[in-house]
């Protein structure tokens, strides 16, 4: 009755086999399709480089492109806002170094106020964002100089003259960055190439070795750079720029004779005039004493010093000069009237730096990095430190600077009094300028004696001369060790 055909049903086994068989065929077919279209798939997901990007192999191919790599450092240092990434020591050292050296205070109440306050109090904390920016921006530009220094030797299609100029500029800028890092932080990792795997765990290099590298780079730069500026105006370093920093480095390291001869060479060259220009000409863009300056690149703004410090009207300055600084000026010092502004007669303490006079508007002032006056002061101090017959020429150098300020000759008569006179002269000549006072007090080991008593509630601690290594750096490189005052 029952046909065998019906009884004989497909068993589970065959069903599974069938599934496998079916899917197997499908997979085979799929694989075949895949293989055929694989090359086109690969092509599909291979996209061209974006049009706004050059890859690293396209940089050192001609003079113009390679020069652009160098220019990016100057541009970014001038373009970035203070406090955000990139300005490095431009303005920020003037303001923050000025606060550390008790030259100025921040008067406004905003979220940055506590961060500024830490500088004034010599009570920096490792998360201080401004300290972090010094470290980060310094190394950002060091990477670029390393990329240029390492990229140039293999460059094709470039003229030797440009190669030398760029190599010199890059070495100078590397020294420039390390100079400030080593001064602000003490030992810092010495990084000379662009390989992150080599560099990510480098510990802090003893500062003596960093200084050695700085001097070596500057000597190289002096050979590579020409006396003439590579372009019109003094917007890119020449040989004398390297000399100017080298003279300063020798001074900082107590190599008095070297410092003297390096500064002397610059002054004697006559490239920067035979006499110092009048006070109101010093910070103009065509000032003859300028050795190197940077061009403002932000729209409608001159230097950050001009646009940030200047006060119009009668309000309290945001960055207010301290009474200690005002008191340091001798009577009749024209710098106090020409380079300082007072906003409100009712409050004589409301003083602000006004070396630069232009804030907004078209660019009429450049940002001066090195000027001849510093070389006079370096030569003076180098001579003073060598003592003996060099003291009198040292006093003469000092008087060159004092005369320009409308002052009589210094009362210093011997080595010791000259050295103290120079400390004071540098304070009033270089106030609100590149943190000179802060670095000077540190290098002469006078910081604790001068600044300690001024710090509120005695917050100065031994070791406060150095800024803390930013905590994010220690976090990201466990080989870094914090400075003593912050342990």
């Amino acid at each position, binding site marked *: *009755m029952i046909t065998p055909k*019906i*009884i004989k*049903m497909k068993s589970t086994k065959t*069903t599974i086999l*069938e599934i496998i068989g*079916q899917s197997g065929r*499908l*997979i085979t077919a*799929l694989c075949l399709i895949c293989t055929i279209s694989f090359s086109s798939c690969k092509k599909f*997901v291979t*996209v061209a*480089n974006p049009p*706004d990007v050059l*890859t690293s192999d396209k*940089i050192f191919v001609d003079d*113009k492109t390679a020069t652009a*790599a160098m*220019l*990016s450092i100057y*541009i970014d240092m001038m*373009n970035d806002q203070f406090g955000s990434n990139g300005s490095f020591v431009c303005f920020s050292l003037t303001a923050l170094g000025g606060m550390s050296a008790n030259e100025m205070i921040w*008067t406004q*109440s905003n*979220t940055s*106020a506590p961060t500024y*306050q830490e500088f*004034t*109090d010599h*009570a920096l*904390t*490792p998360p201080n964002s401004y300290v972090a920016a010094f*470290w980060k921006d310094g*190394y950002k530009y060091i*990477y670029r100089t390393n990329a240029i220094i390492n990229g140039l030797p293999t460059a094709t299609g470039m003229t030797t003259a440009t190669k030398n100029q760029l190599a010199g500029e890059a070495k100078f800028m590397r020294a420039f960055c390390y100079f400030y890092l080593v001064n602000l932080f003490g030992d*810092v*990792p010495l*990084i000379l190439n662009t390989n*992150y795997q080599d560099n*990510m765990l480098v510990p802090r290099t003893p500062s003596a070795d960093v200084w050695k590298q700085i001097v070596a780079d500057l000597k190289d730069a002096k050979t590579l750079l020409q006396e003439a500026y590579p372009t019109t105006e003094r*917007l*890119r370093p020449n040989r004398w720029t390297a000399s100017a920093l080298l003279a300063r480095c020798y001074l900082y390291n107590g190599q008095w004779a070297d410092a003297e001869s390096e500064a002397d060479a610059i002054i004697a060259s006559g490239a920067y005039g035979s006499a110092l220009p009048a006070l109101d000409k010093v910070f103009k863009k065509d000032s003859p004493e300028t050795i190197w300056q940077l061009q403002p*690149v932000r*729209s*409608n703004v001159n230097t950050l010093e*001009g646009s*940030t410090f200047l006060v119009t*009207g*009668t*309000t*309290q300055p945001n960055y207010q000069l301290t009474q200690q600084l005002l008191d340091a000026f001798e009577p009749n010092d024209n710098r106090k009237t020409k380079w300082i502004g007072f906003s409100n007669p009712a409050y004589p303490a409301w003083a602000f730096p006004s070396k630069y006079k232009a804030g907004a508007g078209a660019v009429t002032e450049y940002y001066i990095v090195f000027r001849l006056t510093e070389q006079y002061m370096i030569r003076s101090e180098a001579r003073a430190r060598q003592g003996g017959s060099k003291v009198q020429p040292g006093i003469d150098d000092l008087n060159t600077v004092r005369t320009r300020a409308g002052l009589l000759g210094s009362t210093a008569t011997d080595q010791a009094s000259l050295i103290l006179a120079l400390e004071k002269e540098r304070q009033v000549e270089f106030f609100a300028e590149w943190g000179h006072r802060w670095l000077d007090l540190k290098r002469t080991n006078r910081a604790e004696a001068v600044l300690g008593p001024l710090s*509120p*509630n005695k917050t100065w601690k031994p070791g406060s001369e150095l800024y803390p290594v930013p905590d994010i750096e*220690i*976090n*990201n490189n*466990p080989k*870094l060790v*914090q400075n003593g005052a*912050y342990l």
Partner: protein
Amino acid sequence: MPARKEKDSGRRLCSTKTLLIMKFTAILMVVFTFAASAHSYSQITISAKNKSLSAVFKSIKQQSGYDFVYAVELLEKAGKITVELHNVGLQNALEVCLKDKDLTYTIVGKTVVIKSSERIAIPVPEPVLPPTIDVQGRIVSESGEPVAGASIKIKGTNLGASADKNGLFQIKGISENAVLIVSGANIETIEIRANQSSLLKDGMLTIKTKLKVNSLDETVVIAYGTTTRRLATGSISKVKGEDIRKHPVDNPFLALSGKVPGMQIAQTSGVAGAPVSIFVRGKSSVGAGSEPLYVIDGVPFAHTVGNATFSNGISAQTLGGLTNATAGSSPFVNLNPSDIESIEVLKDADATAIYGSRGANGVILITTRKAKAGKTAVDLNFYTGWGRPTKLPQMMNTQQYTMMRREAFKNDSIAPNTTNATDLMIWDTTRNTDWKDILLGQTARNYDGQVRVSGGNQQTQVSLATGYHRETPVYYGNMHDDRINMHSSFAHRTLDNKFSIAFNASYSSDKNNLSTIDLMQLLTTIPNAPYPLDVNGNLVWSDKGVNFSNPLAYTKKQYIGLTDNMLSSLNMSYTVAKGLRVKLDGGFNVVRLDQTATNPISSQSPTSATLISSADFFKQTQKNWILEPQMDYTTKISKGQLQILVGGSFQEQLSTGEKVSASGYTNDALLLTPGPAATKSVTSSYSKYRYDAFFGRISYNWDTKYLINISGRRDGSSRFGPGKQFGNFGAIGAGWIFSNENFMQSFSALSYGKLRGSIGVTGNDRIGNYQYISQWLSTSSAVPYQGSSGLYPYNLDNPDFAWERNRKMEAGLELGFFKDRIDFTADYYLNRTDNQLVGLPLPSQVGFTSVNANRDAILQNSGWEFALNSTNIKTKNFSWRSSFNISIPRNKLIAYPNLENTAYATTWSIGQPVTIQKYIKYLGVDPVTGIYQLNGINPAKDKIVTRNLAPMYYGGFQNTLAYKGWTLDFSLYYIKQSGKANFLFQAPGTRANQPVAVLDRWQKPDDITNVQRFTTTGAAATQYSYWANYSDAVITNTSFIRLKNVSLAYQLDKKIAQKIKADNVRLFFQGENLLTFTPYKIGDPEIMSFSTMPPLRMMTVGLQVVF
């Protein structure tokens, strides 16, 4: 046959069995349902020797669940039979049994009707009581649409019929007192008397039924297809559009918090359009993005762009744009909640592996509403609401403030003077301004209106919708966020059903002019500052020579953010042969962002040396297209249903943008375009992302008992360098519906039970484009340097990085009790991510702060998820349903070679969660000095207290109560967590206002308190910085339970509604963030910040009318 099968599936339990269970659970059962598809592929085995047909049929009934209807004498006449059958289908069995008999059979629904073959036209003779009637009827849904395939049964008999596709049925010769039981897979069972005249209309008995919500058999959207919860092998959660619409929110994801187990949603700000941070099963990646993949109607939503990685929320800002009060805006504000049909969250490997390299962080499928066949429906919906922040800090008044300042100077032994204390020495110390009232004093409003028209017939359906949404903030001034949106869907299929085409398009345009900053940040403005406006209404900038940073300056600055979003998709499918279908899905999506932020001179202090008007303009266009050819094949093999899918995917995302920074306008009125500016600098961006893939999936469903699903994908991404572009991903998922096993049939309380599990590999390519090449970009200064631009290295390139791999394992148990009135799901998952694609943090000494690289680190996310849904009460007039879920995530670092030399050295340890943070131990306020005491100040060495900031558990609890026309919904969200309170405030005593809570400060030796002494500078101020940045004192319990939503709706009586010719009129009240219970007293526990707007407590009323 497939059509037949489809019709039959869904109701397979025999009625006697149902009745038994009904008796068993009589108290609970108000409705009884036919469990769906339980025996779709029942196979019959009979071994009968000389048995009566009725005995054989009884055996078949037991095995198949089919009822038999016949006249007894007909079977007696047919005599006895002998059969031997093994595992044959029902029809086969019947054919064999009735062979050589003068009998024939018809299968009507789940009933087999046996008739004499000579008298086919004559219905089954009724042996029952006279008088008899004939009943003709129609089964319709509440909205009047026909319900196809319902089964009609005469109570107490085996007689019955089933409705055809138009809902029509006919039963002849039944007792006029007979009671009809109408049931079906998708309707709630009802009983009515056959002679109920009130239902008679033109001789037709019109039976209205309620569509049944059996969540097990609802369609669930998955990758490249659909399934049901019952048949799914993966972990999928679904949220219905109607549940989203109970929340008066602009971003649909805000409505999801607490609704989806394993999905953690946090609002980043209470301002309209703010980004929402979304994690599915935790953060699986150390360095790459942990955002899920969003797919809208099959088209991946292009929100990943450029070099942005998304660690915390997606926002316009991460696309490179300008910021407003919300630090960017979420692209999902352009997704109109009322256009959403459902959102499915795919979590495990089985569900996500087919998305290959992008599935690691979970996949969120958003399906928009489609047109339905039937009467043209017009749906009008309007609501408006009022809101205030959940919690704002209470700030000091002038008296308290000046007292604090004086005490601080005294503590510091500093004399206040006209330099350090202008607020005390120069300004009036008697005037008082409550900045909270001025800045944040308004009532937030929202308005929403939507119109939707849809209709069509079996072949063609069309719907069109448009709407408008507006929100205003609590801020001072006239600000708003407006959105218009349109949505259309069109679907057509040929008469033979072989070819179908569907097109969906939506367009939305959002305009946001909220301020450029969150005004919460300005709450620290001191209370004795001058009033911000002078008598002429101009901003005041200084008082007696002291600068005043006027908080109302922002009212002069404009922010305009325009976002246009066009989404479209086209789906075509053609059935080539039986079971074989080819499909082509295509999608195109454009997002345009156009932002303007101005900084006019009128918003700047006139004492500033650099008074320049400036404006920034940011424009970005993202175009995204996708083409996905697919082929699927469905067949029945033995008792199983086999589905095979193969397909390919080709996709491109192109993003171009430019930012113009313009300055030097001659007049503030010209600021809205860059043209009139004296100088402009332009930066541009360009980024192309291409992606292709082959994928396949095989799923097999054996007898609705054993389910297996295998999927695989090979895909290539342009984000990786040559040789690293392609990767293989795949998963296997399996399910066992054990409740369908015979041995489970005696456990009648358990109506559904499934065990499922999956294992597989997915990937993550969430890093920016072009990261493998070394890029040098042009500098962007407004003025070139001596006429030239510079070139700078933009990234550290690494040509060798590749996919991040995420291995996922999952086990799940799903149970349904009492005819699925209670349903319970438990999931355990264990995901391990290796080959970590890391934006490896580097010390800046290398020149950059990160590089993309793969690390050998293995990160494990595991966790439990439980969900319980229950119909607690169900009577004729009253019902109460609730659902509860809890997610318990855990996270662990399994391995990290060379950890001690990485950025994570001081924070992570092997075997610990990566969500831990380390802090310096807080020792309280020194009773002698009044200064915070910490156990050290060197973070690198002294951070030894470990705190885990990840949630310990979170979840939600929803309830729906319905009484006649009233429906009340309320949902709670809860989370157990610790958080870092984000302090905006400086050390109390400095020149900034403080919350009154700091008045609890130390004042004199031996004071025991947790607030240190007031100070303006020096050691105490420094210590405050360590305390706020590094100590565990700022870690507090920020757990909370929030009454997230209450929705009360009243549906007008049909009769009243019909007076205005409406089908449905509904009035509703909705409240959002109504109550919060938390130990965190300072601010809102979800935001944990004083500088960010907390969520708003919103109350809305609305009206919906459907014609």
